[in-house]
């Protein structure tokens, strides 16, 4: 049966109640939910579902490890805003998903994972490849289901999609026993619709809260907007921008907030927190009002909470009531969808003159910014900052960048300036090494017309490098930049700063990544000097297929500035005035 015929019959299932097998119901429900791509790996307990796939117009991406499937579904969701779907078999297949599910949970990514399980008759008997995956994923899913009746499958999957996207988004797992997949039931897509979402008793924006917030904004002398991931999740880019422009408030972004406020905007200060620029953190510490939009005061952005922004009143606009007053005590908590709350708040905000405060912030930049490595003359050494800067310059910032976790991730955040939401795909909350490559595959599947780059370290890349095969099998044009310094760089940096440079277990022997790519049928080249970077990036972009660049960067370069753990936001380790490896650097 051809794809069109499949599509037609799948469509008729949605309108006319039909008797189907549980396995067919899985696909029919996914089709009804608008799913076109599923990332997964077959196995015994999910085989009935895989067997039924040929009848449905869904593209299945065969991964090399289930962790990759979860990260791909996650990357798919981050890049497109749609729900990503991952599939795995029981036992080890299901447990391999866990890291990917936890990654999505910590970053509030809507995702649905479907796993097979052993027959309900042997459930709980330690049968072959049986694991209590609903029990295991309890703390890392927004919700999960164990379905052992065919007639419950459609409702569970539809409910999972609703939970995944509603309120604060997150991952949901549906575990389906093999006998439920094999049985038959009447599939009625409409009837399987979950009940209307229950109202949240703590979820209301009260008039007095809005009034109080507007009053605080009106009277603030040194306000700062803290822009988080919730902005892109709720689609509030325009509203945040209007607020910033109307009241002339500078904007500081969290790592996951990057892109939700244009980097080139005059009011954009850049990233805050542990590796944010010092003027951003100083501005937050000096502020008399913080307006937190869809962010959760993670410890990576606050430093020690007891020393955080003590002079500032705080307004927190957040969809999850459990986040308000969790890490930082706030003066006004506006609980609700960010876009809706801002739409209610904006009519109460009048134009405001913020020039004095903006000038103060501007004047604090100067001395620090000259130490940007990218502004220094070529000393023959290759720094990761050069690579990020050239990548940004050459792509014009118009690319989806998926990063791994570590030094390169922070350099990317500092030197690649994101203009649009969903252009940075990165694991913020869980900090999952090995995320970049599979997440980029998901992003490319979601946005085939976009230029997609993987930026990974030599450590993290090896955690999921097997997915290179998936790139080839799917014929994806993905460019890969490995920032190779022969160390687990961020850990080495911590060892240098806080453990007397005892580089225990951080030097890393890696394969020749270009040869590794070649073994997969992917072209590549190594880059060792700054002069070569631009040419290499262009070569990768022009290549018809995937391309891997192995950037051999300075081995013991560190990410500056940095707030050591336990310090206040303004107590940063600044960029060293004189870097022994770089000529003509001035003292700060």
């Amino acid at each position, binding site marked *: 049966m051809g794809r069109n015929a499949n599509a037609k019959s799948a469509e008729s299932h949605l309108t006319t109640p039909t008797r189907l097998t549980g396995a067919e119901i899985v696909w029919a429900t996914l089709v009804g939910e608008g799913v076109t791509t599923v990332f997964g790996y077959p196995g015994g307990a999910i085989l009935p579902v895989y067997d039924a796939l040929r009848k449905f117009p869904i593209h299945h991406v065969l991964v090399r490890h289930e962790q990759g499937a979860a990260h791909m579904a996650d990357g798919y969701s981050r890049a497109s805003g749609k729900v990503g779907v991952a599939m795995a078999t029981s036992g080890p297949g299901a447990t391999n998903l866990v890291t990917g599910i936890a990654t999505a949970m910590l970053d509030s990514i809507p995702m649905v994972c479907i796993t097979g399980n052993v027959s309900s008759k042997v459930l709980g008997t330690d049968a072959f490849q049986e694991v209590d995956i609903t029990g295991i994923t309890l703390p890392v899913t927004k919700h999960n289901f164990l379905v052992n009746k065919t007639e419950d499958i459609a409702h569970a999957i539809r409910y999972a999609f609703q939970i995944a996207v509603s309120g604060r988004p997150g991952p949901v797992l549906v575990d389906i026993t093999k006998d439920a997949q094999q049985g038959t039931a009447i599939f009625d897509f409409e009837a399987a619709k979950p009940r209307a979402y*229950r109202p949240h008793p703590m979820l209301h924006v009260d008039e007095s809260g809005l009034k109080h917030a507007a009053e605080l904004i009106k009277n603030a002398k040194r306000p700062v907007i803290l822009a988080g991931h919730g902005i892109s999740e709720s689609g509030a880019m325009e509203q945040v921008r209007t607020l910033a422009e109307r009241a002339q408030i500078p904007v500081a972004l969290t790592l996951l907030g990057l892109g939700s406020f244009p980097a080139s905007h005059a009011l954009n200060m850049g990233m805050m927190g542990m590796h944010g620029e010092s003027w951003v953190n100083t501005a937050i510490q000096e502020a008399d009002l913080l307006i937190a939009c869809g962010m959760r005061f993670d410890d990576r952005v606050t430093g020690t909470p007891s020393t955080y922004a003590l002079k500032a009143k705080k307004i927190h606009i957040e969809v999850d009531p459990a986040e308000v007053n969790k890490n930082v005590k706030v003066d006004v908590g506006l609980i609700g969808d960010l876009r809706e709350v801002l739409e209610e708040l904006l009519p109460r905000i009048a134009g405001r003159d913020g020039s004095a405060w903006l000038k103060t912030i501007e004047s604090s930049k100067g001395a620090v910014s000259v130490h940007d490595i990218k502004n220094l003359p070529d000393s023959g050494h290759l720094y990761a900052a050069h690579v990020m800067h050239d990548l940004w310059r050459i792509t014009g910032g118009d690319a989806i960048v998926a990063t791994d976790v570590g030094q390169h991730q922070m350099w990317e955040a500092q030197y690649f300036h994101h203009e649009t939401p969903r252009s940075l795909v990165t694991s913020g909350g869980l900090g999952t090494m090995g995320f970049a490559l599979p997440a980029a595959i998901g992003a490319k599947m979601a946005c085939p017309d976009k230029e997609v780059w993987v930026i990974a370290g030599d450590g993290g890349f090896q955690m999921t490098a097997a997915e290179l095969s998936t790139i080839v099998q799917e014929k994806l044009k993905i460019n890969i930049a490995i920032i190779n310094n022969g160390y687990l760089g961020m850990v080495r940096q911590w060892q240098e700063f806080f453990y007397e440079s005892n580089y225990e277990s951080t030097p890393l022997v890696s394969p020749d990544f270009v040869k590794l790519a070649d073994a997969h049928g992917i072209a590549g080249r190594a880059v060792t000097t700054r002069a070569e970077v631009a040419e290499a990036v262009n070569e990768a972009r022009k290549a018809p297929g995937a391309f891997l660049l192995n950037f051999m960067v300075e081995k013991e370069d560190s990410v500056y500035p940095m707030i050591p753990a336990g310090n206040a936001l303004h107590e940063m380790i600044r960029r060293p005035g004189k870097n022994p490896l770089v000529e003509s650097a001035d003292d700060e």
Partner: protein
Amino acid sequence: MLHTFVAYVEDLPGVLTRVASLFRRLNINISSLTVGRSEREGLSRLTLVCEASEVAGHRIRASLFKLENIVDVDDIAKAPNVTRELALIKVAATPRNRAQIFDLVEVFRARIVDLTSESLMIEMTGVESKIEGLIEVLREDDGRILEICRSGKMTMRRGHHTSSVLKAMGKAPDESSLQEDVTEDAAEANADVEPA
């Protein structure tokens, strides 16, 4: 401070694990947890008591509500409420000292529900302190208590109060089933009467 969370939860496998798991993760000890059927089919009523700061209490309530199987949560420790606990206490008793225990049971308005030649079982319903009081007196005679089984707290707000969320969901208790003649005052007056 002490929090008393009252939650309506769906009767589904794993719901209690989800609730308990939330407290485990926060490293907060549950001092009492009682679950039983509610006035609604398919929904159980859960009473959970724990010690936590006020801010933590707010967060726990919000986090409990985030669980999909929880339909409503209320923290009623501060509201006027009626709290009861049930205890079954088995005591070693011979014909010689039985009368003494009978007297004690009478004073505490408990009752004897089982009697053998060597032991008897006391059933007592009341507030925690009263049950503690009986146990303390029984303990004065070394080795007399053989077994204690306590239910944990059950708490209900005083007055004609029902959950606003259940109402919004159309799941409010059927109004007609409420006795029309029981006004709030009357209900309140009745509320603290100790059961016999």
